[in-house]
């Protein structure tokens, strides 16, 4: 099982819980696909048209920055905690 933590703004807009548990998925792309199936619109908000993560988002798999480990191809071990975070940006 994988525990996913979502930003409050995103969860609220799509009617999703801020934390949810999903079945095992091999990588971040598959996690996003699962989130999209559960809450349509999630893929559009997390990834760009080319499938890569949006530039002002950070995704951590346990304590690893997914962007530094293959982006959406980053592996997600069973039992992982996946954190979707707004990156440090804005004004």
């Amino acid at each position: 099982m994988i525990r996913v933590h979502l930003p409050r703004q995103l969860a609220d807009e799509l009617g999703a819980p801020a934390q949810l548990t999903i079945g095992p998925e091999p990588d971040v792309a598959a996690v996003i696909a699962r989130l999209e199936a559960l809450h349509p619109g999630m893929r559009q908000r997390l990834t760009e048209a080319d499938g890569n993560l949006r530039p002002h988002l950070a995704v951590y798999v346990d304590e690893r920055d997914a962007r530094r480990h293959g982006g959406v191809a980053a592996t997600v071990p069973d039992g992982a905690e996946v954190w979707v975070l707004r990156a440090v940006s804005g004004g």
Partner: protein
Amino acid sequence: MHAEDRTTHLFVGTMKGLFHFTSTDRATWQRISFDFAEQPVYTTAFDPSTGTLFAGVNGDFFGMTVQRSQDLGASWKATATAPSYGADDPEKVTRVWSFLPSPEEGEGVVYAGVEASGLFRSADGGDTWTEVASLRRHPTHETWNPGNGGKCLHTIRRDPNDPDRLYIAASAGGIYRSDDRGTSWRPVSKGIRSDFMPEPMRYPESGQCVHKFGMPAGKAGRIWLQNHGGVYRSDDGGDTWVRVDEELPSDFGFPVVAHPHNPDSAWIVPLGGDGGRWCVNHQLGVYRTDNAGNSWRSQHQGLPDQVWTGVLRNAMTADREPEVGLYFGTTVGGVWSSPDEGDSWHEAARNLPRVLSVEVVGPRR
């Protein structure tokens, strides 16, 4: 809406969300709601044929969404998808700048203008979008470049006198016309100046930084246009242009609003060109013509002086009442209304975030 309802709704898009105000006299205002916190709202548009209000919400973190309301902003829901170029496209859609609800083409038809400049069409009220690819495929597309605000298709209009004829403008890109509902396009920018080009190249076929244009009903072919340097009028659908800014204190500005009932009248907000792009002489105010641009007069009764602010291209509009109401928002978060065509001004709000867009839904829609 009930026939006796005299409520005017004002939707003010800012860098940090969308504010909704109402008034029954267009002079005193009540704030009703605030939505889309932290997210820039570059445009809102109302479709009177369905009662649908669209908002372009350009969030930094989760990308752009098209939001839809069926109850004048009391509740919002994102459309199923947003405009997007293909995965292999060298350009990305990052913001939506403009909508054109188009019941003339069928129920649920709406166009969206986006950044990087392109045009999309939806036939299902915004749930799915198809690019009007003929526009970006035009050979002159290579002349398009980003202005200071981005590479944006900020204005879409249907000719009020010819429902088959569409216009768009992009910064920088120019103004384009389609005579066949978007199937094909051609630039109608010849004669509009490009200050930012070398002297011999200042009147190109395309690539101009058109800031805004407006089209009145009642006079076929008339277009008002505020360029990045130069206020222009066309009386032949953009085939030719004449400058009408000789009497103005500055030829630079962003918005232009066509009078909804009198084709010879229009409003602009001149800004000091490259000297800060603030209201001329630091006096907040609009300029109005009633003779097709031959002369202009300042309208600033009730507006402050000693201001260091301006009005952006999507931040001014008019309603359709017999005595037209005008509305604008400033780059320092002020919102002003005039119930008498600019003769007097009233403060609707102050100290909002930077105002990007203003849409009015008046009693007469």
